[in-house]
C-alpha cells in the first residue's frame, strides 16, 4: 500500500523539481548567451558587500529625498538660543534630550533636523560634482580613445595632445587643484561642486581612453570595419558602450571621494559660506572650534559622511568585482 505523502515529503519533491527546472533554464540561458550586464547583476545580487552597500545607499537616498519633510524643527531655527538653553560663548551646548534627539549645534539649532536636511545637500554635492567630472572626463577620454584607437596618424596626435593636458592635471595634487579653483571662483556651493568635479576629470579621461583602446583591438571592431561601417559609428555605437563598465564603477567610487573632498574644502574655509542650508561637510567644519565642549557635534556629521562614503565604496567595489572579465566563469 502506498501511503499518502507527508507534507514535508511533498514540499521536498516540489523543491527538487523547481531546482531541476532552474538548472535547465540556466543551461538554456548559457546557450543563448547572457550579456555582460545581466551576468554582472546576477553576481552582484549574491555579493553581501553589494547588498550592504545598496541598503546603506537606499536609506541615504530615502532620508535625502523624504527626510526634510518630516524633520521636527526647521534646520535654520535657532530655537536653543531663543529658549536660552544654548550659550556657546560660555561653553553651554546641551546634548541629546527627549525633544532634541541629537541636542543642539553651536547656534542653538536642532542637530537631528540639520543632519537629516543635510543629507540632501550632501547628496547634491556628491552627485553633481561626480557628474561634472564624468561629463568632462568622458568627453576628453572618449575623444582621445576614439582618436587613438581608430583615428590613424592624426588621431594619435590628438590623443597625445589631450593626454599631455590630462597628465599635467594629474601632476598637481588634487586638493591643491580644488583649492585653487575654489579661490578662483569665490566660495559658494557651485564652486565646491565644480572644484571637486574637475579634480576627478583626469581619472575618468584616462580610464575611458584606456578601455576604448583595448576594445578597439577586438574582433568585432575588425568585423565592423571590414563591413564598411563608418569609423565614427564604430566609435560611438560599438566601442563606447563596451568600454563604459570601468567608468561606471569609477563613478560610484568617485561619489564617495567627492563627498569627502567637499568636506575637506569646507574644512579649509572654502566651502559653502551660506550655512543656513546644512551640509555635512560644513557641519563638520563648523564643529571644530567646539570639539573641547561637545565633540559629538563633529562626530555626528563625520559618522554620517563615513557611512555614506562606505556605502558607495562597497557598491563600487562589488560592481568592479562583478564586471571583472577575469572573474567570469
Amino acid at each position: 500500500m502506498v501511503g499518502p505523502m507527508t507534507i514535508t515529503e511533498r514540499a521536498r519533491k516540489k523543491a527538487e523539481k523547481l531546482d531541476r527546472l532552474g538548472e535547465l533554464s540556466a543551461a538554456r540561458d548559457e546557450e543563448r548567451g547572457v550579456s555582460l550586464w545581466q551576468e554582472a547583476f546576477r553576481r552582484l545580487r549574491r555579493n553581501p558587500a553589494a547588498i550592504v552597500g545598496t541598503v546603506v545607499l537606499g536609506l541615504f537616498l530615502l532620508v535625502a529625498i523624504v527626510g526634510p519633510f518630516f524633520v521636527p524643527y526647521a534646520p535654520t531655527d535657532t530655537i536653543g538660543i531663543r529658549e536660552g538653553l544654548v550659550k556657546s560663548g560660555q561653553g553651554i551646548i546641551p546634548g541629546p534630550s527627549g525633544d532634541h534627539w541629537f541636542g543642539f549645534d553651536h547656534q542653538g539649532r536642532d542637530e537631528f533636523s540639520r543632519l537629516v536636511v543635510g543629507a540632501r545637500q550632501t547628496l547634491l554635492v556628491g552627485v553633481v560634482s561626480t557628474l561634472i567630472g564624468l561629463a568632462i572626463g568622458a568627453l576628453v577620454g572618449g575623444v582621445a580613445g576614439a582618436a587613438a584607437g581608430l583615428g590613424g596618424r592624426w588621431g594619435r596626435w590628438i590623443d597625445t595632445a589631450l593626454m599631455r593636458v590630462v597628465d599635467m592635471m594629474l601632476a598637481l595634487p588634487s586638493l591643491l587643484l580644488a583649492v585653487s579653483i575654489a579661490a578662483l571662483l569665490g566660495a559658494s556651493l557651485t564652486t565646491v561642486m565644480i572644484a571637486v568635479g574637475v579634480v576627478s576629470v583626469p581619472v575618468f579621461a584616462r580610464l575611458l581612453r584606456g578601455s576604448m583602446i583595448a576594445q578597439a583591438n577586438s574582433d568585432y571592431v575588425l568585423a565592423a570595419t571590414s563591413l564598411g561601417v563608418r569609423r565614427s559609428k564604430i566609435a560611438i555605437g560599438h566601442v563606447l558602450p563596451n568600454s563604459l563598465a570601468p567608468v561606471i564603477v569609477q563613478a560610484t567610487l568617485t561619489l564617495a571621494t567627492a563627498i569627502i573632498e567637499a568636506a575637506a574644502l569646507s574644512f579649509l574655509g572654502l566651502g559653502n559660506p551660506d550655512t543656513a542650508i546644512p551640509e555635512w561637510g560644513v557641519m563638520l567644519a563648523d564643529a571644530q572650534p567646539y570639539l573641547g565642549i561637545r565633540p559629538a557635534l563633529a562626530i555626528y556629521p563625520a559618522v554620517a559622511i563615513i557611512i555614506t562614503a562606505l556605502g558607495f565604496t562597497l557598491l563600487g567595489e562589488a560592481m568592479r568585482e562583478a564586471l571583472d572579465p577575469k572573474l567570469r566563469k
Partner: protein
Amino acid sequence: MFRFIVRRLLQLIPALFGLSILLFIWLHRLPGGPETAILGERGTPEMRAAIRENLGLDEPILVQYGRFMQRMFRLDLGTSIATKREVTTEFLQRFPGTVELAATAMIIAILVGIPLGYLAARRRGRLLDHVSVAGSLIGVCIPVFFLAYVLKAIFAENLHLFPASGRQDPTIEATRITNFFVLDGLMTREWDAAADALWHLVLPGLALASIPLAIIVRITRASVLEVLGEDFVRTAEAKGLTERVVRQRHVLRNAMLPVATTIGLLTGGLLSGAVLTETVFAFSGIGAFIADSISQRDYPVLMGFIMIIAVVFVLVNLLVDLSYSLIDPRVRVR
C-alpha cells in the same frame, strides 16, 4: 637605462614649460591681487596702483611672463610678496617638514600595509582577511582631517602620549643644518632633538598614512591572490621548495609590481592630505603655506612652489618606473 633616464628628464622640459604658462594665466585671472591682500578693502586706487607698479604687475602679462622665465633660467624664483623673503629660502625651510611627514606616513603605510595585505591573501576568508578588507574599506572613507582631530584629541590632549602640534619642542635648542629635523638631530648627535622631532611626527604621520595604508593593503592582497593562483607557484611548492623560498622569491616578488605602481601614484596624493594634516597639527610644512599664499595672492610663491612640486612628482614617478626593473628583471626600461 641611462638613455631612458635622460629621455624622461628631457620630456620634463616641455611639460614644465606648458605648466608654467597655464599657471601664469590661472594666477593672473584670480580675482583681487596681492594689493587687496596687503591693503584690505581700505586702500585708495592710487595706493593700489603704486603697489602693483612696485611689484611689476602693471606691465603686460607677456612681459611679466618673459621676466619670470628669465629668472627661472637663473634658478631664481623671486621674492615672496607676503614674507619679503626669497621663494627658494621659504621652500628650503618648509619643504623638509612636508617630506618628513610624507615619508613617515609612507613608511607606516608600507611597513604595515604590505605584510597585512600578504597575510590577508594567505588566509583568505579567515578572520584576519575579513578584518583587513573591512578596515581598508573604512580607511578610505574617513576624512583625513577628522581622523587627525580624533588622534589629536585622544593621544595628545587626553592621554598626553604625543605632542599636539608643531615639529619640535621649543624648549629644545637644536642646531639646524638641512631643516630635516630628524636628520639634523642625528647629524649633530643631538639625540634628544632627533627623538623629539620623531615624536612630533607620529600622530600626523598616522593620520596621513590612513588612506595610503588602506589602498596598499587592498592592492597587495589582490595582487598576492592573483600570483598564488599561478602555475609556477604550484610548481615551486610541488618540487618541494620551502615555504619561505616560495613566499619570498616566487609570490612576493611577482606581486610587488602593481604595489610599486600604486605607491608611486599615492605619493602625489600625500601632498593633498599633508595640507589638511599640517593644518590640524600646526605643522609648518608647505601645505598650509600654499593655502595661505593662495588667499594672499602671493604669485611668486605659488608659481615657484607648484613648479618645484611638479618636478618632484615627476622625479618620484621616474624612480618608481626604474624600480620596476629592480623588482622584475623581465621588465627592461627603454
